[in-house]
């Protein structure tokens, strides 16, 4: 099963080029040019990884991260930034980002992180299913 990724960046040409390169590598890619568009897409579909630019008009990456984690806590969000500071990195991790990378990003490194995010999400979803089954069995008293 291919990894499913949502790319979020207001730089259209960057978004298109990265999406095409990821598609060539067998990744299923959706794109959004704003945080609000990303949140709408994330509400409708489940993604293995959501890669979000930190600095965007209307809503920045950290605000988007907060909302994405609220709507789907199992989302694996990777933040991309033109300038990675230690403070922003720590803040991003505290808010639940799985990683914080600086642009220009190394695509091999990014696809590795997407694979890791996909594997991590599988574990999270499996645990949730187990929990649900356990709850059902407790309620039904089997």
């Amino acid at each position, binding site marked *: 099963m291919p990894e499913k990724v949502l790319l979020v960046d207001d730089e259209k040409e960057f978004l298109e*080029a990265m999406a*095409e*390169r990821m598609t*060539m590598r067998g990744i299923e890619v959706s794109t959004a040019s704003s945080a609000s568009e990303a949140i709408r897409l994330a509400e409708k579909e489940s993604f293995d990884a959501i890669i979000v630019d930190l600095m965007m*008009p*209307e809503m920045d990456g950290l605000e988007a991260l907060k909302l994405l984690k609220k709507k789907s806590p199992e989302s694996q969000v990777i933040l991309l930034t033109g*300038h990675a500071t230690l403070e922003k990195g720590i803040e991003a991790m505290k808010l639940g980002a799985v990683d914080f990378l600086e*642009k*220009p990003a190394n695509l091999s490194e990014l696809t590795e992180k997407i694979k890791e995010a996909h594997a991590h999400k599988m574990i999270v979803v499996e645990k949730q299913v187990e929990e649900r089954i356990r709850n059902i069995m407790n309620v039904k008293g089997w």
Partner: protein
Amino acid sequence: MNQASQTMDDALLRFFGRMTASMTHEVKNALATVNENAGLLTDYAEMTLQGKPLDPERVHGLAARIADQVIRADGLLKILNRFAHSVDEPLIGVDVTEHLKLLMALSIRFASMSEVSLNVREPADRVVIETSPFPLLNTLFGCLEFAMRAAGRGRSIELWAEKGPSGVCIHFEPLPQLDDTSAEALEVDETHSLPGSLEGRFVMNRTSGNLSLLLSKRA
């Protein structure tokens, strides 16, 4: 060094840091796009080695995109260079409209984040004032930040200069949300933030919705 002078130096240093950080961020964005498009060219070359056909139109398109981003990055660095040189002269004749254009170019990311578009109006006659360019830019940026808040998202602000009775008037308009914006949000103090050669006064017209900075040469 007295307290006011130290505060002013700190404010100017912070301003220099903010502008440099913003411009270099934009250059990074251009480089990131070049990086991805160059990577795509490499990917296409790899595909050709595997026997897949190459579309020359697509390659031309990518090369053109890379060239565009190089022009973009070069433009950004020219602006950053002009900004860096604004500290060269302590006192010089400053063309105020050209200074506003430099301000607009430096503020591109801030305006985008505020979802405000900026425009500088050409004056009928050239408007020049003798002053220190860098501290004046700092004051003008403080006015612009306030103006963007007072304009509101999705709006357009016009910046323009004219000769005043004893100096120069610089206007930021229209500001439809000026009534809802506290004067305290204007985080520059014309007494302390202007170069020593100038006296200044802010005028906020809440009826017509504009902010003006009136500058005159200190007696």
